[in-house]
């Protein structure tokens, strides 16, 4: 046995530190929480305001325009229909709302960061190891800082989700911009492009397929994390799974799991379609 008289705990110090931060930075945390909550509320309102059948029609139409195949066009809408049949429509929209808010915040942070990494090698070498660490860390770990700073609820759920979902869009923005053919960039410079024009007219447009692939991955990771974030009270589909697990309700768990998979498939199809649509004109 490990001798208990040399046991030492940092827990009280960390708790004190976090308490101090939350008090000292109270206005910031409150403002941030209110902003996120406000966004969540509006987006959820919007999602719920759209009637279920319009959702299904819209998803089908979008899928059709992307694939032009009958089966592939009908599938997502049909799957979405089963979510309603299982009685999860409202709660699935709640999950979707958190995903959307998290993705918006992730993109607002991630795309500029990716651009900065592409422009500055120093920024790249500094941020890359952090991204590596973020991606090797199990997703559960992100619940802790979010919980510490924001307590229980949807806002820490969004915070944990943003941290977890951020790396792909940062990486793929950086990669996409760095991979733009040097001969095209050289031509733009030769005709007198400033570095800002080069970024706006050449590098970002040509990196767009890669950036969109990053957005797709970030969205998928956000969905996965939102489900886990139900453990700190984010609500949504994850909460249903959690309750079913606690009750050993296998059937209910299956239904909830099914609904999450459907959400994943539908979101994936729609965001991937975006990538393909961008790919076609440039060749």
């Amino acid at each position, binding site marked *: 046995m490990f001798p208990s008289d040399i046991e030492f705990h940092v827990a009280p110090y960390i708790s004190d530190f976090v308490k101090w931060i939350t008090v000292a930075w109270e206005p910031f945390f409150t403002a941030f929480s209110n902003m996120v909550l406000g966004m969540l509320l509006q987006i959820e309102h919007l999602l719920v305001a759209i009637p279920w059948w319009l959702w299904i029609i819209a998803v089908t139409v979008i899928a059709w325009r992307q694939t032009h195949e009958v089966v592939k066009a009908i599938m997502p809408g049909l799957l979405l229909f089963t979510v309603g049949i299982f009685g999860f429509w409202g709660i699935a929209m709640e999950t979707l709302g958190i995903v959307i808010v998290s993705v918006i915040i992730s993109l607002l942070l991630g795309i500029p960061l990716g651009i900065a990494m592409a422009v500055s090698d120093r920024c790249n070498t500094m941020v890359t190891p952090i991204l590596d660490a973020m991606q090797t860390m199990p997703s559960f770990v992100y619940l802790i800082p979010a919980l510490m700073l924001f307590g229980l609820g949807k806002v820490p759920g969004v915070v944990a989700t943003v941290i977890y979902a951020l790396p792909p869009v940062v990486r793929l923005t950086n990669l996409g911009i760095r991979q733009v053919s040097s001969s095209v960039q050289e031509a733009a410079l030769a005709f007198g*492009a400033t570095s800002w024009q080069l970024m706006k007219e050449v590098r970002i447009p040509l990196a767009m397929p890669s950036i969109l692939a990053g957005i797709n991955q970030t969205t998928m990771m956000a969905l996965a994390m939102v489900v886990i974030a139900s453990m700190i009270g984010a609500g949504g589909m994850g909460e249903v799974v959690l309750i079913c697990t606690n009750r050993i309700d296998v059937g209910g768990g299956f239904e909830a799991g099914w609904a999450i998979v459907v959400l994943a498939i539908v979101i994936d199809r729609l965001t991937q379609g975006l990538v393909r649509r961008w790919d076609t004109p440039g*060749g």
Partner: protein
Amino acid sequence: MGRQDFNLVEVERLWKVYHKTEKTLNLSDPEAVEKAEAAGAVIAVRDVSFQIKRGEVFVIMGLSGSGKSTLIRCLTRLIEPSAGVIRVAGKEVTSMDAEELTAFRRGEAAMVFQHYGLLPHRNVLENVAFGLKLRGLAHELREARAQEALRQVGLAGWEKKYPHQLSGGMQQRVGIARALVQDTDLLLMDEPFSGLDPLIRREMQDELIRLQKEWQKTIVFVTHDLGEALRLGDRMAVMGAGVFVQVGRPQDIVMHPTDEYVQRFVQDEQRIAQLLDKGRVSWVRSIEAHASARTGKVAAGR
């Protein structure tokens, strides 16, 4: 007539060293240069000086790796020279700050690239208008001018196509139109036709000769092909290992190669000439015939 009026481009003692010691190397000390080379420095351009007259087609010919691309890029500082002075139209390019350099690239020199360098996400018209867009020209104005340039290179009707829908030859026509629309005196062309098959290549050379008759630009034309140099050049420089081995009129260079490197370039041309005239007419004549397109152009242009 002032000196700058006569010479559009003046290059004095230009060097380009690819090495980590580039900034600190004392280029006037031959020993230091030698030492750097031993340590892995590549001297792509070595103490090159030359002038190009207004309206002249100046060809730089040399084997791959001889420093042609580096040299032509130094003229607009797409590659930053290690040392030397470059003047274009009397303005010292090598001492311009970033803003002046951008203005210079927008208004005074246009470039055509071997690999075209077209924007794949923009259609043909937008590609041609790209330089004008960078200058901030209004949409209608730049599209009208781009349209006109496309007509000149024989691509009217292709405005809405994307580069990947065009053959190599047509893509390079777009590249040429994009340079023409800039309305610059100086046109820089780095092996513009090297990626094209022989027939298309020939066609493009004729096209350039025709356009040059009309525009009378000052052209710096890089090639590794002697035939092309003979057809297009008013004057040519044979480049080897970073230096100009020989500079002169193309026919003079073919007739009187000054050293073995140039001799190796021109020997095929001499042999063909000898076969053609079967000993009756001197091979010089047929070389002159070879360069007839150029001579015709000069006659028409002056």
